[in-house]
């Protein structure tokens, strides 16, 4: 900040926000705001305050409502009810609450706790505490909301639901006349009758299509996303990441030294037990090896742990770095190693597995930020190094 002390504008901001600004302070604020850098600092502080107040990035916890707030909220709810009944221009009811578990608040006309059967007007916002669940019926869609979600209902029945944060699962009746779409900060999702899940975090939007096809628009580009695909949209990166979710490419070899290739196929996961029958397709049941290649993509960034349980040998590389190295003959042993993954980025992965005789098992699991230990899912793998 040029010749203005930064703390002074910060102090005046806090005083104005907290209603502590006296007349002298107000005059000083008006004078300070003549400086462009002070004005910019003011806008930064104001936006930060707005994001914090909007609970962005904050852990979702069950709210504690002081008695006064409950009283005011009750009065506001009664007032809103009266207004809704009496005012001809009041927003029409657009959704109904079909199921609720935990603390679910409606944020319009005063905060109210929602119950089953409640009708929600156009434009109402719904906020779920951590661990809560709710189901809404909106037009021809059933929307399941998970804990921490916040959404705004559309203004008209045919409008789009705005998902601010959290995760919702949408099931659209293909026969329904009204099929709402979903708008996030990063993408617009339009459907004609399908089932899909949308999740929003601070860094992007995640779309998982269970059934049918949805049209996804991001950064001005529209693309059809088919069932079984998982797509993450991250602003600032390539507009849309290619759908992932088709597993890894496995090259099968006779012998344990990866020297005599037999065939190649795409495998959905690395979770196998070939003790009795071997890998099939004419491969031997003893003395063989498999090399899986492709990419692995995590939806959250940070340190991820890969855990391999193998009988016999296994090696795993992430981006050319050997993270698991256990080449030996013998019973199943679990080994783990860590790698730093960037959210939404496809990282090269290579897995070498070698089988001697008797039991033939391999399971590759992972755990990381927001993800409990599980077999690395098909959705996280892509058989090409350039998905």
């Amino acid at each position: 900040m040029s010749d203005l002390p930064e703390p002074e504008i910060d102090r005046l901001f806090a005083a104005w926000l907290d209603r502590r600004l006296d007349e002298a302070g107000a005059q000083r604020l008006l004078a300070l705001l003549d400086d462009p850098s002070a004005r910019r600092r003011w806008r930064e502080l104001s936006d930060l305050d707005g994001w914090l107040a909007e609970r962005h990035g904050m852990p979702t916890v069950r709210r504690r409502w002081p008695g006064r707030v409950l009283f005011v909220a009750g009065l506001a709810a009664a007032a809103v009810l009266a207004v809704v009944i009496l005012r001809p221009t009041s927003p029409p009811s657009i959704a109904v609450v079909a199921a609720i578990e935990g603390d679910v608040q409606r944020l319009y006309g005063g905060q109210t706790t929602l119950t089953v059967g409640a009708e929600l007007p156009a434009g109402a916002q719904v906020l779920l505490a951590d661990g809560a669940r709710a189901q809404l019926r909106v037009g021809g869609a059933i929307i399941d909301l998970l804990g921490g979600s916040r959404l705004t209902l559309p203004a008209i029945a045919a409008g789009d639901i705005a998902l601010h944060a959290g995760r919702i699962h949408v099931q659209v009746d293909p026969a329904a006349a009204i099929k709402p779409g979903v708008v996030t900060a990063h993408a617009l999702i339009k459907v004609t009758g399908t089932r899909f899940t949308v999740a929003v975090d601070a860094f992007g939007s995640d779309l998982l299509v269970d059934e049918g096809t949805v049209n996804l628009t991001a950064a001005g580009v529209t693309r059809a996303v088919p069932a079984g695909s998982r797509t993450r949209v991250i602003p600032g990166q390539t507009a849309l990441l290619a759908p992932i979710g088709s597993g890894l490419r496995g090259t099968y070899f006779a012998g344990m030294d990866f020297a005599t290739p037999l065939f190649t196929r795409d495998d959905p996961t690395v979770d196998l037990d070939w003790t009795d029958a071997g890998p099939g397709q004419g491969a031997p049941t003893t003395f063989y090896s498999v090399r899986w290649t492709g990419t692995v993509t995590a939806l959250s960034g940070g340190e991820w742990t890969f855990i391999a349980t193998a009988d016999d040998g296994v090696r795993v590389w992430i981006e050319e770095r050997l993270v698991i190295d256990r080449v030996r003959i013998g019973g199943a042993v679990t080994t783990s190693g860590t790698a730093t993954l960037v959210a939404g980025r496809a990282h090269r992965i290579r897995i070498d597995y070698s089988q001697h005789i008797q039991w033939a098992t391999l399971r590759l699991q992972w755990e990381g930020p927001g993800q409990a230990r599980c077999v690395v899912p098909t959705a996280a793998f892509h058989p090409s190094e350039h998905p």
Partner: protein
Amino acid sequence: MTTPVPGPAELIQRFVADRGHYYGFLRLLSGDDLVAEELFQELSLAVIEGVGRFRSDGDLGKWVRGIARNLWRKHRARRHRDARVVPLLDERIAERLTAVYDERDAAEEEAQVAAARHLGRCLEALGERQRTLLAARYHQRRSSQDIAAERGMTPASVDSTLYRLRGLLLDCIRRSGGLPA
């Protein structure tokens, strides 16, 4: 070469992506958590309903803040709220602040939206006690008096701690590349 005209869905997307900015604006105008929350819902509805009337070559932020300001004025007229300083000065500050926000250009809007993406990590970098204080104030909407009573502090020290935390968060966001230096 013509610039593609943004459709209603794209405009709503921009509003959602920048919602912290509008929320902050309403908080500063109203000076009351519950009123700001209520006005923000009304604003969301007004924007979603009225986006078809927005001139696509106009300034979206200015248009939305104009609606926000009208909502606040109507609210104030309904509630006959006390002025924050003195009525005329209040109005002068509100006018001045509106002009301050109207200076925000597309690059700054983009930077602020990017900054919001860094906020989660910067919150994680704070100490547990600091995070709890922010959650009490912003998430649970508790007053400085309530927080002070619970923590054995004075309301003034709660306010000054929050003031310092906002500065720390802005510094962190700037260091992590979320805001221009």
